[in-house]
């Protein structure tokens, strides 16, 4: 297929959300998966070299065209102002959910030291987190996790791409420094790709 790269470019161009390679394969079943991959990477390269107004970015498990950050000022002038920035409290809560997922509200509050119901609600409304289910312990509390939109919003390829916490006071921060704390528990039925392994 000599026009495969063009077809993929058109698909990426029109898609609202990041396109995964398997989604592309579904639209172009006649193409070889290897060639699809190659074409996508070639496109990514091309746009980087071209250094135009937008780039092909790998994000949330797929690929998406995005404008280059340096042009946000002009875009902001022409289009609707973006949604309100997340408050430091909301960001903190989000960071905990991201790192400790699947996580309970009580675990979040233990780390933050404050009631976090309100910030959880805001994050749920903004679809950055979601209710994953319940933990089978007394009270059957709700379990929270981040969403696909979280990855898209913060330009993350996957949860493995989360930033690592900075070292504090020049010393390695090990979770073991917090003895007997709940959030580090690993439950058998819930795999934790999201957790950072220190």
């Amino acid at each position: 297929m000599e026009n495969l790269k063009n077809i993929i470019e058109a698909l990426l161009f029109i898609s609202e959300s990041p396109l995964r390679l398997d989604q592309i394969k579904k639209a172009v079943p006649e193409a070889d998966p290897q060639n699809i991959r190659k074409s996508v990477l070639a496109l990514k390269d091309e746009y980087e070299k071209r250094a135009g107004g937008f780039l092909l970015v790998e994000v949330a498990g797929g690929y998406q065209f995005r404008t280059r950050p340096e042009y946000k000022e002009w875009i902001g002038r022409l289009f609707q102002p973006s949604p309100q920035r997340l408050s430091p409290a909301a960001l903190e809560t989000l960071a905990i959910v991201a790192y400790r997922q699947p996580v309970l509200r009580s675990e979040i509050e233990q780390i933050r030291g404050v009631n976090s119901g309100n910030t959880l609600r805001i994050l749920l409304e903004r679809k950055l987190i979601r209710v994953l289910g319940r933990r089978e312990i007394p009270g059957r509390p709700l379990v929270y996790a981040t969403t696909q939109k979280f990855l898209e919003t913060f330009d993350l390829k996957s949860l493995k791409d989360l930033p690592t916490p900075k070292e504090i006071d020049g010393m390695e921060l090990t979770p073991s420094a917090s003895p007997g704390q709940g959030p580090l528990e690993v439950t058998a039925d819930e795999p934790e790709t999201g957790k950072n392994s220190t």
Partner: protein
Amino acid sequence: MATQSYEIKLENVFEGPMDLLVHLIKKNEVDIYDIPISLITDQFLAYLDWMKSLNIEIAGDFLVMAATLAHIKSRMLLPGSADDSAEEDEEDPRLEITGQLLEYLQIKSVAQQLCQRPILDEDVFVRQGEDALSLVDLETGVVKTDLFELIQTYHKLLENASGKNGILITPERISVKDRMTEIIQILEEKKTVSFMELVAQRFERIEIIITFLAVLEIIKLNLARIVLNKKQDALRLYYL
């Protein structure tokens, strides 16, 4: 007066007791692994007093932290735990707060780093949707919504409905209806189930009663048939 109003603004910076604690530790430039607990506790309490004097309502979370600090301080004063000779066998009571602080600082650092990434719709933008392409297939079509939207909708309905026509707005934790649904799910899977199986995992009397009521209701709805097996002396449900 001018300085006071400035300080009130400063107060808002603290998200909670952890934030205040971090602030105090930074301000005093002390080692997080060797917190002068007496000094920090005093300053923490002084801050609460100052808030009180300004008639700022102190959140319960701050009081909990104050109590924790006071407790650690008192344990440090116990003979044997404060001086170095005791070491090893007795854990430093400050570890409790150190661990929490480290964890909190870790999260803060992550939050900050997340914030610096190119954020969608703030720093970077994607093309707006092309809805013209939508073709809906009712059978296989996926639905664009999420759980929170569903709960929120129900919550609003309840709010609007409260006080109207005296509608029951507080469903029981384990209601007959819930139990019915569970039983029907079991029946759909297995086609048949005995009453004993249904109550096997139920230890509380109320749960057994609710199960029984649910079974009666299911029979009333003509969803299942109940048969008494004389040999085994057991009631068995058959899905219709």
